[in-house]
């Protein structure tokens, strides 16, 4: 009986401990204006375990710790919900706190524009971008199209004849990357038929012939291409990439469609971080990006190196937002 009580008490205290992460960031600026962390750093992955954000956050935390780049403990916390919105509203509560970071990618631009988050990239402090990934458009191996131009010609003649599938909802990543390239090719993007299918069903639907084109990340296509089940008509990178199989994927640009879409991934801090902490993190992320250990991880996951410091990153994000805004206006999906 007493044992039961003890177990109960134990779990109760675990729950309490998990709830009680207060906000007690005291400033620790040295006399020369530089800043060093004096307590553990929390990196939020605004999604569940096992996804892209989670993997990036955990890998970065691991290298920063193992290589001794940051002495303080770095913990990764998952804040799942709303495609990121739950995590962002959590971070937004820590105005000026230099110990709360989060990993971000294009959804932080897309989701606020879709009207699904009150916070966007302007509300936070972009610290540094680390990696880039690109989209790929795949069709079945026996499909009638051999390159993007053939596909887009057919879509121009009869937009109703082609169905595109992706994991995310309209107005989000998989949809927008396709629309952006298609628009540059002259397709009427308001007529594109897009289906969203979760839980691995999008690839299923491509393979069984229910849909025609699969808009996804490059890494997701590699195994199927190797097995001759699908072929990649084009990728959204500015130039060809290195690596087995991937090197054979033609870019949209080399097919005469002058457009790219970058699935960038980097780190943001809480709103209103001061200059000294920004400089500190910028520095550490640069060191990380240049390290051997992180290069290995990039190779393992097929990520491209794409470092940007604070200022450059900010300008890049604003530009990205403008671009997407135009697309969403065309599609009638701009809900900001």
């Amino acid at each position, binding site marked *: *009986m007493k044992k*039961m009580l003890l177990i*109960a008490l134990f*779990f*109760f205290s675990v*729950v309490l401990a*998990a*709830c009680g992460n207060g906000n007690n960031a005291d400033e620790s600026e040295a006399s020369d204006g530089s800043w060093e962390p004096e307590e553990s750093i929390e990196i939020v992955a605004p999604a*569940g*375990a*096992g*996804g892209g954000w*989670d*993997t990036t956050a*955990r890998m970065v935390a*691991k290298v920063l710790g193992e290589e001794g780049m940051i002495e303080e403990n770095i913990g990764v*916390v*998952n*804040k*799942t*919900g*709303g*495609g990121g*919105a*739950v995590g962002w*509203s959590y971070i937004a509560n820590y105005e000026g706190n230099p110990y709360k970071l989060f990993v971000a990618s294009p959804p932080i631009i897309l989701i606020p524009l*879709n009207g*699904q988050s*009150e916070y966007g990239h302007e509300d936070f402090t972009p610290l540094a971008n680390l990696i880039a990934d690109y989209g790929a458009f795949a069709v079945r191996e026996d499909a009638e199209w051999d390159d993007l131009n053939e596909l887009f010609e057919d879509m121009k003649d009869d937009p*109703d004849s082609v*169905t595109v599938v992706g994991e995310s*909802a*309209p107005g*989000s990543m998989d949809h927008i990357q396709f629309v952006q390239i298609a628009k540059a090719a002259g397709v009427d993007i308001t007529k594109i*038929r*897009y*289906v*969203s*299918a*979760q*839980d*691995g*069903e999008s*690839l*299923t*639907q491509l*393979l*069984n*012939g*229910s*849909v025609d084109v699969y808009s996804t990340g490059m890494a997701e296509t*590699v*195994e*199927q291409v*190797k*097995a001759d*089940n699908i072929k990649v008509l084009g990728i959204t990178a500015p130039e060809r990439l290195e690596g087995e199989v991937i090197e054979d994927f033609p870019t949209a640009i080399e097919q005469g469609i002058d457009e790219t879409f970058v699935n960038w991934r980097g780190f943001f801090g809480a709103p209103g971080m001061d200059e000294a902490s920004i400089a500190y993190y910028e520095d550490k992320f640069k060191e990380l990006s240049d390290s051997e250990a992180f290069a290995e991880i990039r190779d*393992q*996951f097929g990520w491209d190196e794409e470092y940007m410091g604070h200022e450059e990153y900010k300008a890049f994000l604003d530009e990205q937002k403008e671009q997407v805004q135009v697309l969403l206006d065309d599609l009638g*999906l701009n809900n900001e």
Partner: protein
Amino acid sequence: MGAIEGIITGFQTAFSLQSIFFVMIGVFIGTFIGMLPGLGPISAIAVMIPITFGMDPTVALIMMAGVYYGAIFGGSTSSILLNAPGVSGTVATSFDGYPMAQRGEAGKALAIAAIASFVGGTVSVVLLMLLAPMLASVAISFSPAAYFALMLLGLTAISSLSEGSTVKALISAVAGFMVVTIGIDAQSGTQRFTFGNTNLLDGLDFLVIALGLFALAEVCTLILNRKDKSIQNAHKIGSLKLSKQDWKEMTGPMSRHSIIGFILGVLPGAGATIASFISYITEKRISKNPEEFGKGSVKGLAAPETSNNAATSGAFVPLLSLGIPGSGTTAVLLGAFLVLGVQPGPLLMTDQPEIFWGIIVSMYIGNIFLLILNLPLIPYIAKILMVPRPMLISLVIMFSMIGVYAISFNTFDLYMLLLFGVVGFLMRLFSFPAPPFILAFILGGMLEQSFRQSLTISNGSFSIFFQDPIAVSILAVAALSLFVPLISKLRKGNNNAKKKH
């Protein structure tokens, strides 16, 4: 390398001391996590990803697979003893498992669940081993139209999941449909019923609803009836031994649902939860004594328990042979593969046969361990029922809350849990059955999405549902299962009427 050589490699890998050891650890953690209401394999596997980094990938994956099917195996325990499903795949287990335990036969109920799980798990591994290479094409054979038909077939069971008023069952199901639409609509990107609340954007988690409607509602009922002497039996554990009659009753459902569960597991998106429900209602349909279901029927317990374990092995077909994760748990498992540097897909079987076959063969060992681990523990686990009722009730409430909090570490989910506890209690008070609600919640999301995907693909033409042969055959079965009982009822009525004249 041929399949036979591959299988031999698999046996060599799986029967190495190291593998056996880690399978044991995996299934032990899995059973334990599964037994706690609310805590599921997703969180367990996610926690293991950083720990296993640097381990031999084969061994690490064998262990994580063990956590996955171990959790489904163990999940039945809290469904049976406390009416608080441990994982979503074991909600249907509580329909007959809990009444059986309340009758003073908890030992028997747990033994049936363990044996059914073992049979379902083992038969499906045999199928997996023999057919995995061929099944890859089955896994992708379902178009959105076929999924829609399958979900519709599941829904025809609403009437059979309820006793008493069909109208009340339908109202309950409609409420379930409405609740599942909460969140961002995947096909249009618009928000539905979120009231501007960020926490509702992803909709409600299945466990919030299941633990609210079942565990918390049950707690309320227990508190209200605390002076009722008739439920005193619930303290008894009863004998573990199954009678000859029990064995006889179990054989049918176990053999049927090993196969049904496995096939549904192979289909991405269907999975253990849907499989267990479809098995439960199929068994009730074909039973000669459907009135026993929901009151502690042996068949009603064996069917979903066999099926959810069989589906778990089935889910490895699309994962290993296509790289397609069919569920939330397998998606996390896929993440674990990638972190360990293994890319599941069509080439895994030829490129890394030791991993592909090693995982499959290790599941035999895992299932045997699970049986050995679970059977002797039953008397001890069942002792939880001896805990004085006020204590037990508090424990159920607490574990439900921990489980729900662990989904996404968000206190908002706890309020939702309480809300659905109250809703569940009111539903009982006014005798609205909860199973149709939960069935509609499980099937509704996919029903709607696949319906709209189909119509987008066909440019709005309904003919798409009648062109796909799989969809047509399933729709025909659905129509039959809806109208045949109706017609036979009418006929009986006519006969009775004639006799009276």
